[in-house]
């Protein structure tokens, strides 16, 4: 079982590499090196802040775009090319296929994030001339970004398991935007009464709370998120991704592939 999932995951990773997904690293490198050189000349005393903010924002946004646009095609492309039938005619269960795809995509994003993180630290070294112990907090922000990717990957797979690529992209991106406002949604629920309050609270908990993972500005100021937050965010990401992935499996198990 594990071997089959690993095979599917490694094939998904290889396919992403073949699709030149990692080419985004070139754009990322250009963006970061350009800003590191330019900002020092056009602004005052924020070179370090810009490198961290811009670097981590780019890591996050590039990853989310990759997760959505690859994730939505993971199932539909296999159906379209009819390769799915070849895979499922072998001793591979449908749920193994979905889980394998999830890990393949997550692996691609982790590798991508690893190279981008090297770029962020390189740019930081360039502008600040040295790295300090407080820069280690950037690793926590990167870890939270990876957790965010896990949720997005699972959601993209969930939508991909029953919808067309275009609609899946719209759903996944909308959920990302709504999830970024999750705290506002909760605030709105707090102000409402009766049924509206229940519905708004339900919606606030149903959408992924991406704002909880965003500690970019905090670490840019050299402050470390608490250990409790790291633990709870990890659990939340695992549970939410697990929920979306289970949904994807449930739908895909029952989907008529004829």
């Amino acid at each position, binding site marked *: 079982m594990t071997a089959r999932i690993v095979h599917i995951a490694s094939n998904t990773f290889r396919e992403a590499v073949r699709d030149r997904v990692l080419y985004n690293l070139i754009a990322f490198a250009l963006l970061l090196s350009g800003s590191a050189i330019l*900002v020092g000349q*056009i*602004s*005052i*005393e*924020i070179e370090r*802040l*810009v490198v961290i*903010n*811009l670097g981590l*924002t780019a890591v*996050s*946004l590039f990853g989310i775009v990759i997760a959505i646009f690859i994730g939505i095609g993971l199932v539909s492309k296999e159906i379209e090319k009819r390769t799915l039938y070849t895979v499922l005619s072998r001793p591979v269960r449908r749920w193994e296929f979905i889980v394998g795809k999830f890990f393949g995509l997550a692996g691609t994003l982790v590798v991508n994030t690893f190279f981008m993180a090297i770029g962020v630290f390189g740019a930081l070294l360039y502008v600040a001339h040295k790295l300090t112990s407080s820069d280690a907090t950037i690793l926590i922000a990167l870890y939270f970004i990876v957790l965010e990717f896990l949720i997005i990957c699972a959601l993209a797979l969930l939508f991909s398991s029953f919808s067309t690529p275009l609609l899946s992209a719209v759903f996944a991106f909308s959920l990302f*935007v709504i999830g*970024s*406002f999750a705290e*506002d949604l909760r605030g709105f629920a707090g102000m409402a009464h009766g049924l509206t309050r229940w519905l708004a609270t339900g919606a606030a908990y149903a959408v992924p709370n*991406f*704002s909880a993972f*965003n500690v*970019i*500005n905090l670490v*840019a*100021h050299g402050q470390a998120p608490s250990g409790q937050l790291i633990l709870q965010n990890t659990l939340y990401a695992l549970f939410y991704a697990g929920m979306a992935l289970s949904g994807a499996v449930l739908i895909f198990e029952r989907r008529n592939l004829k």
Partner: protein
Amino acid sequence: MNTQRLSSQTRTTLIAAACLVLCAMASVLTLRRVDQLRPRATLEDVLYISSPKVVKRASLGYDGLMACIYWTRAVQYFGQRFHDRSLSYNELAPLLEMTTQLDPQLLVAYQFGASFLAPRPPNGAGQPERAIQLMEFGVQNNPQEWHLYYDLGFVYYMELKDYAKAADAFERGSHVGSHPFLKIMAAQMAQHAGELDTARMMWNAAYQSSQDKLVRQNAVEHLRALKVDEDITNLQSTVTRFGQKTGRLPNSIYELATAEKWPGVPVDPDGNPYTMDHTGRILLKHPEDFSFATQGLPPGFTPVAKFHDQ
């Protein structure tokens, strides 16, 4: 057949490449023309979104990056206006408020922002009240940053001449961390607020408490200007005394130096001798070298920004 196709392909390549280069050049030239027709349009546009809340939400949580962008815009806006010796800085305060609302911990925006907002034009926006508001917002969000109390007191002292409030700001700052010199500042405010020595102490402290090149250059300029103002005030008193004694003005500054038995003609911080016009006014030889001097300037002289390291 193959040769024919190759030459046709080469021709297409050459024409497409030429079109690409021509169109690229033409688009650059056209854009430059557009820029001339609507100068500063980019910076003005930013204020179409004047609500920090809207910008914060639109940034999808990446508000730290947005704050950096707005801060850079504020610096660019101020730099452009300052360079043009503009008398209006209408968008500066909203840009700074937007920046600090997006990232209340961006200390540099408070510290530099106040020094952009407070001084009278053309050296700043001439809005010390907005500078105070900005600093108070900074203090509220970063109560442990003693620099902010110092800068707040500085604005009260230098721009509003409100020595009681300056003393209060220094006093509040002296309770944060261990910076005994804020305590001294508070005491100095209470006893010798309007004196030149107090101003000199403030600029010296500004120089020593910052590692930033621009802050230090600004402090140096003010210290140089204070020295000039002090020298010229003293020299002018000497000219008046000479007049009272002899019933006429000295013919030159050399006559004044001889009468006072000075070893030579007094010189400015650059070593250039002060001069005197026919009305007995003491003047700087190179007034353009002293951006913030208020004395010794020829009539109608407009100071220009010029910075020295020492």
